[in-house]
């Protein structure tokens, strides 16, 4: 341990002599690791998009189960939601990577990460949809029924449009949250790494220092802000005024 520290200090001092600072310039960093950053950004986006799409599909299915008039289905769906909204991402990922092989289920690192970052948002997706549905005045449903609408018509024309429209903001937040969860990918060896993994990669292969961190931070942040802006734009267009 002591020697590792010494070694690290020697390398850093050599770097300080070479570059005048212990942190690489943004130019030097990008020439050396530029394409890695691009593929890292792409990995994060790909994971985010895939996980979000899957999470919404599962979330809708679970929500349908939660409002179904079949008690065991409701209970199972409720159980699913409570488990995955309350489990820490790291615990879930570690379980998938290290514990599942003991059950003779071996998944690739990529599949493990994707599963972890899909299951957790899917539970929150269902919670948001339920909350969106609860903004509907029960009187509307009684009115729809007294107009003679069938159950399918009622769900399609009264419940779903309002539930979807009033959960736009929360779905936007879910997309951002999914993106932040993809940082879990840095905890397993993936090639190419994601935007968080690349920071530790650069710091073990060179003295990327604070610049490496800043580039990833800015990329995350800009993405989050853009998603947020687009989301509130859509929300303003479709919001149900009450």
């Amino acid at each position, binding site marked *: 341990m002591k020697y590792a520290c010494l070694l690290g200090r020697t390398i*850093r001092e050599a770097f300080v002599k070479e570059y005048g600072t*212990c*942190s690489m310039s943004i130019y030097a960093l990008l020439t050396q690791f530029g394409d890695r950053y691009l593929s890292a950004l792409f990995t994060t986006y790909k994971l985010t998009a895939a996980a979000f799409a899957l999470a919404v599909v599962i979330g809708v299915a679970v929500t349908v189960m*939660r*409002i*179904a*008039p*079949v008690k*065991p*289905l409701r209970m*199972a769906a409720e159980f699913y939601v*409570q*488990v995955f*909204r*309350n*489990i*820490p*991402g*790291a*615990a*879930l990922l*570690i*379980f998938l990577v*290290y*514990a599942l092989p*003991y*059950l*003779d*289920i071996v998944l690739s690192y990529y599949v493990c990460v994707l599963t972890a970052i899909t299951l957790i948002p899917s539970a929150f997706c269902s*919670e948001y949809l339920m*909350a969106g*549905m*609860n903004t509907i005045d*029960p009187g509307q*449903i009684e009115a729809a029924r007294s107009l003679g609408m069938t*159950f399918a018509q009622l769900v399609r024309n009264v*419940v779903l449009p309002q539930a979807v429209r009033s959960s736009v*903001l929360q779905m936007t937040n879910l997309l*951002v949250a999914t993106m*932040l969860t*993809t*940082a*879990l990918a*840095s*905890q397993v060896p993936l090639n190419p790494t994601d*935007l*968080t993994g690349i*920071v*530790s990669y650069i*710091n073990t292969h060179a*003295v990327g*220092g*604070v610049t490496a*961190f800043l580039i990833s*931070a800015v990329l*995350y942040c800009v*993405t*989050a*802000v853009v998603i*947020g802006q687009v989301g509130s734009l859509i929300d303003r267009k479709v919001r149900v005024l009450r």
Partner: protein
Amino acid sequence: MSTANSSIRDVLYEPPGPKTRRRIGIATAVSIVVLVVLAAKVVRQFYIAGQLGPKYWSLFARYTTWRFLGRGLAGTMEVAVAASAVAFAAGLLLMLGRISRYKILRGFSTALIEITRGIPTLLFIYFFFLLAPQFGLKLPAFWKITLPVAISAAGVVAEVLRSGVNAVPKGQAEAAVSLGMRGGSVFFKIVFPQGFRYVVPALISEIVIVLKDTTFAYVVNYSDLMQNAKVLISNYDALLSVYLVTAVIYILINYLLHKLSVRIAGRNRIPGITIE
């Protein structure tokens, strides 16, 4: 934020007639069978893989196991409490900055809030773990996990508090001003206490997120529940059972916090006040 209360579920269906009742009965029976089969498959997989053996589960009958896990849990709680406190203080300051009348302060706070909300906790942890030492900032492991977790919660806390303050009816502040109160005491004695009350459930939900983020403590080698679970695993050579129990502990604690939040939300609900 708020969870499903069953109001909409209950009005979604008419009281079922005899035909529908029979159909629901069949669906119930079928779904019970499917769920039981699924559960049996899981248990069977455990059995086939030999994971049900007493070797893997007998350690949980020992007092020392639970004491060790409990010590880890105490470590987790210390980080969670400290991080929550720091996040609340920082969030309060950011919120005050964001609603202040000075444009520069407003812009600065808004930027900070967006930054802390848009960056994953892990990246902040790497900052404190890998980069801070390069600047000669030597922190104990406790703060290396507490600070990043607190920072990434601070922005959300600020926005939650702001939504509460915004939900307080305008008349409250106007009444206070007309009684001769000054700006500062109008905010801290009238507006903020009410706004805070509205958002207590949302703040509890944020504690759940803080608690979940503390599981990254293994990155900085701080002994929390997860880390102690790892030690147990190498001592007893029982990976699956220990991780399973650890996960269940986390889920139970967070579930209880979530239930608390829902209950307070139900009790504090005030007609006509909506919190975004």
